[in-house]
């Protein structure tokens, strides 16, 4: 290689040592992947659907008298169903992102998905909390109305404090890191996508 401009990159490139793992290793990984891949999705679904089923059971078993109780139940279930639907759709989008696209299309898809994830964590979570809080407050009214005033205030007070604690402390703490990660990812993907435009 006397000529500086004639470095044989192709030759160097292909000399990289490569070890092809046995195909049985790969097949084993495929099996494992199939089993664990959607565990999180299933867990969330089962948990929220289970809760909804339990609430529905309460409705039929205890036969609440007040319309507020029924509206409350509907709101709580609605909150969970909306959350689940968006969550499932988003995760499905992410898992099934069409792999056979050009890099450019793929990057744009990634950006869209990350932006939706962002929406889910902010706006949708807020809606979920509002529906849940209103639902629970309405639901409790029938039972609180049978309590003494002090007990009723105590019951509402504890419930609302718990919701506030969740919304103002646990939720921001959990999402702050994720939010930062998603935002920096969106930025990064946009930057990479930009490389193709220049």
């Amino acid at each position: 290689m006397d000529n500086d401009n004639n470095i044989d990159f192709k030759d160097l490139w292909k000399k990289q040592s490569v070890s092809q793992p046995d195909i049985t290793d790969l097949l084993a990984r495929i099996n494992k992947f199939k089993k664990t891949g959607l565990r999180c999705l299933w867990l969330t679904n089962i948990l929220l659907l289970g809760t909804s089923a339990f609430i529905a059971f309460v409705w039929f078993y205890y036969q609440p008298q007040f319309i507020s109780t029924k509206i409350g139940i509907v709101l709580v279930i609605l909150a969970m169903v909306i959350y689940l639907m968006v969550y499932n759709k988003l995760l499905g989008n992410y898992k099934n992102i069409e792999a056979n696209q050009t890099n450019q299309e793929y990057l744009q898809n990634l950006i869209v998905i990350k932006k939706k994830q962002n929406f889910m964590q902010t706006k949708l979570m807020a809606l979920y909390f509002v529906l849940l809080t209103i639902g629970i407050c309405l639901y409790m009214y029938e039972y609180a109305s049978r309590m003494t005033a002090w007990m009723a205030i105590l019951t509402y007070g504890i419930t609302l404090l718990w919701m506030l604690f969740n919304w103002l402390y646990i939720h921001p703490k959990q999402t702050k890191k994720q939010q930062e990660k998603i935002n920096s990812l969106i930025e990064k993907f946009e930057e990479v996508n930009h490389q193709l435009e220049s």
Partner: protein
Amino acid sequence: MEFEQIYKTYWDRIFRLCMGFVNDYDAAQDLAQETFIIVWQKLETFRNESSIGTWIFRIASNNCLKQIEKQKRFPKSELPVHLSEEKLTSLEPQIQFLYKCIAELPETDRIIISLELEDIKQNEIAKIVGLSEANVRVKIHRIKEKLTQKFKENGQR
């Protein structure tokens, strides 16, 4: 084409593409495996609209782009790569240097030059990346210039 046959034919090439992207032997091995998992999942949906090579390289390069996400989660350590000798990955310095230089390029350039070095035709590269052929040609030219420059600076010829 049978999956096993695809695996045997393409593993080395896909591995090198991933290696050019991350310049980390283990990470590249993982990325290549992930690629073949996707290939295995999607093989049924492959229609002969494009050549199977284009199809697989698209999947592989997209998977490389997707893993940027994981990188953020596990920031790369600054330790020099290939520290461990027992792994049999100790390479000639020139090869190591080439992969290092490529992994330092902007992400899409890494993909483009890796495909070029894999002897993929420029019109196929254009179809994989989503650029015009003319654009790809210009980019390859520039990247090669950049690499040559780096090799010169480093005294690696």
